[in-house]
């Protein structure tokens, strides 16, 4: 029996099945925080609000995260073709792009804090920082997974025929990307337009 085969009674790999159940539940997790932000984005307690958003800067961050999804899928594609050299290069590229995204988020948070938008300044700011902070934490966990996968591959613990392991990391990473697709539109673009341009 192949080391790869971990079927359930459904004939599917149980790790992949578990990952999809987990990702399905994550929609409920992030949905709660997105809804909270939508309820409170006008409640700024007299302080700054969504007008502080730098849409140009956040757009660049979004492009970077989208690009990291491409490098991730190329890493998995290379691994599935047993090309470990390219697999590791794309894996590192994904981790690098994720790190740039996190750096951008840290910069954005610092700018907001200087303008008076902090975690405790209003209901809007609390909802915003908790939501985007939790997304950032997911990205950070993803980077750790990517670097762990790279290390395990270098040390021979992940072999050329074990691309399901890369697929697991990839599913998680793409999920983090699609959550940002939702956040970028629903948390940044739409509220900014409604508040700044009056919708």
């Amino acid at each position, binding site marked *: 029996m192949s080391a790869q085969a971990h079927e359930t009674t459904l004939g599917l790999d149980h790790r992949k099945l578990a990952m999809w159940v987990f990702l*399905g539940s994550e929609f409920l997790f992030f949905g709660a925080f997105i809804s909270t932000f939508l309820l409170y984005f006008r409640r700024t307690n007299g302080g700054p609000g969504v007008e502080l958003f730098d849409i140009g800067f956040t757009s660049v961050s979004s492009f970077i995260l989208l690009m990291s999804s491409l490098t991730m899928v190329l890493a998995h594609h290379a691994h599935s073709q047993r090309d470990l050299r390219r697999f590791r290069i794309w894996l590192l590229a994904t981790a690098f792009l994720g790190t740039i995204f996190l750096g951008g988020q840290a910069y954005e948070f610092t700018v907001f804090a200087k303008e008076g938008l902090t975690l405790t300044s209003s209901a809007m700011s609390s909802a915003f920082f908790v939501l985007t902070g939790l997304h950032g934490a997911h990205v950070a966990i993803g980077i750790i997974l990517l670097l762990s996968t790279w290390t395990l591959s270098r040390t021979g613990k992940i072999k050329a025929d074990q691309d399901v392991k890369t697929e697991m990391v990839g599913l998680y990473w793409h999920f983090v990307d699609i959550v940002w697709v939702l956040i970028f539109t629903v948390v940044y673009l739409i509220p900014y337009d409604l508040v700044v341009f009056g919708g």
Partner: protein
Amino acid sequence: MSQTDTAAQASDAAHDDHHGPTTKQYVQIFAVLFVLTGLEVAASFIDVGRVFVPLLIGLMALKFVLVVGWFMHLRFDTKLYSRLMYTGLTGALVLYTVVLLVFSDAVLA
């Protein structure tokens, strides 16, 4: 041939099916995602009137479907994974739409 060997071969065959898209197709999907994001940003800075919110939701949904379909391989995997994902998504949409409808007046008043 043992039952486990057959299961392993079935798994491998199913696994091969997951890798349908080529590198070129992945890059093309990324290019489409890039353009859609550009359209979203452009729509935020030009006055498109009342279609703004529906337009952005539509573009967002399109990006979502492209990522889960191609990058997460749902188009090429068993339908069960799609059902699991869309069950969670639908549950979240229904639950939080109800929450928004119930509490929006109280919060925004």
